[in-house]
């Protein structure tokens, strides 16, 4: 599948944003953070900013973005529509929660309820995003039990690492949060490795025989219906060399998981403000790593239509 930047950035940014939002929505009301202006302003700004940027970026993928509002109508059948609805719906409790925290300076009562609701909405939205891909049977690498948990785990992971950086930035360091960041990153790493392992061993029942209805033997593409690349090849025919993919997997592991873990562990031992800088660096590096991960998520996904093209 073609790794369009608009979509790569959309899923990565909203994943991190919703993760952060969910943590803020839960940890705020739990008293984990004081209802101070700046952490609230920066935290909620960052979460909602990432979400908004991601959603805006996703409209870059649309042929007719001015009609995007229509996407809220088919929630009964379409995961994309559900995601649209959920993402917008999330803004309501998230907005109230943010207002309560930042303007009113409180994290209790209805603000807490709004926070918790926002967290639930965020999780639901991430699930919807994951299901967009997990529901696509023509892409076996996506239509797998690993996809939806993956989106949740990466959302939680990048949200937590962001949250840690945020709290560190306000010198509100929490060893628990740091530890959670490390653990979630380890979990993400493990999940990604397991996903890759699963995909690399995937035995796909759909092949050129079933695609053409020609039973038995081998079916080899002789001539395409057209010489130059068409929409299908550009959109779904993206190919990545095995060597190239292996390199990018290493980079993913380093940036999204390995380096952040090292930095986070170092932050445990380092004094403020170095710990804060290191935590921020971990979040940034991880975000970059997740962009690579998401790029690979598309690039390594093979669509059944390419069976017709012998790719």
């Amino acid at each position: 599948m073609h790794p369009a930047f608009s979509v790569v950035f959309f899923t990565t940014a909203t994943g991190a944003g919703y993760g952060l939002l969910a943590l803020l929505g839960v940890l705020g009301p739990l008293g984990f953070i004081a209802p101070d202006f700046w952490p609230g302003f920066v935290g909620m700004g960052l979460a909602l900013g990432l979400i908004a940027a991601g959603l805006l970026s996703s409209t870059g993928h649309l042929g007719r973005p001015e009609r995007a509002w229509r996407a809220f109508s088919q929630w009964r059948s379409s995961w994309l529509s559900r995601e649209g609805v959920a993402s917008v719906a999330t803004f309501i409790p998230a907005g109230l929660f943010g207002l309560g925290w930042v303007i009113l300076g409180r994290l209790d009562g209805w603000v807490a309820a709004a926070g918790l609701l926002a967290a639930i909405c965020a999780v639901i939205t991430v699930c919807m995003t994951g299901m967009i891909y997990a529901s696509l049977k023509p892409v076996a690498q996506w239509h797998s039990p690993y996809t939806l948990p993956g989106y949740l785990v990466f959302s939680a992971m990048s949200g937590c690492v962001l949250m840690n950086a945020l709290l560190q930035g306000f010198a509100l360091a929490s060893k628990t949060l740091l530890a959670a960041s490390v653990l979630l990153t380890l979990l993400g790493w493990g999940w990604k490795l397991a996903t890759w392992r699963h995909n690399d061993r995937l035995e796909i029942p759909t092949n050129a025989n079933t695609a053409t209805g020609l039973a038995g033997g081998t079916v080899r593409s002789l001539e395409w219906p057209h010489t130059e690349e068409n929409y299908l090849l550009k959109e779904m025919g993206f190919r990545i060399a095995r060597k190239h993919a292996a390199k990018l997997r290493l980079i993913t592991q380093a940036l999204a998981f390995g380096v952040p873990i090292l930095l986070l562990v170092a932050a445990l031992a380092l004094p403020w403000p170095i710990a804060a800088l290191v935590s921020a660096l971990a979040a940034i590096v991880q975000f970059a790593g997740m962009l690579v991960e998401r790029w690979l998520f598309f690039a390594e996904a093979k669509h059944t239509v390419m069976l017709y093209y012998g790719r």
Partner: protein
Amino acid sequence: MTCLPSHTDKRLGLVIDLDTCVGCQACVTACKEWNTGGHMGPLTDIDPYGGHVDGVWFNRVHSYEHVTEMGGRTVNFPRSCLHCETPACVTVCPTGASYKRASDGIVLIDEDKCIGCKLCSWACPYGAREFDTDVGVMKKCTLCVDRIYNDNLAEGDRVPACVAACPTSARHFGDLGDPQSPISHLVAERGGVDLMPELGYRPTNKYLPPRAHTQRAASVPAKALEPVRAEGGFLGWVDRMLSS
């Protein structure tokens, strides 16, 4: 509405005979020509005279070499929308642009509602949908919905353009939901198959597989030729035959 109709009155579709298709591209350009001025038209061509030419087409013909222990065969393979009974391209559509008609089962796109998110093309395993970058919407085979019911065409012409054009008679059209229809009989007789049945989209269109070579070769039950047994050999035989 992208929820699927629980039942369609008809299941209109095509049957394509891979035993007979010579890969001439007639259906391909007949489709292009009708539809570029039709319901979903234009079928835009980008860079039509240049090195990166890329047009919208609803029907494309591949060719394959199918090699089994029986030998090899070149198979020409037209590919277009199969008007599935449970098409994911419809249900994934967030806007209701993509829909399946309850009356005849044709899968269509309402262009005015399409936001061009391309998800339907991801959801279709068959590559039936093509994006028109010029207008930013998805387009696809309409089963010539503007021909098959068109009062302004002679009645005999109210079939999909590809079926009308096919010079080898390799394409058929009809109601596959009616087991008594001629097209259903054809499918039953020739063992018509679904493409990627394992994905469960229940395509309406069927493909008739090529008949096995040996089966056809055996249709000439010729005994090996024996030299004539006659005095004087062949020439003696000729004389005898003429005299008899």
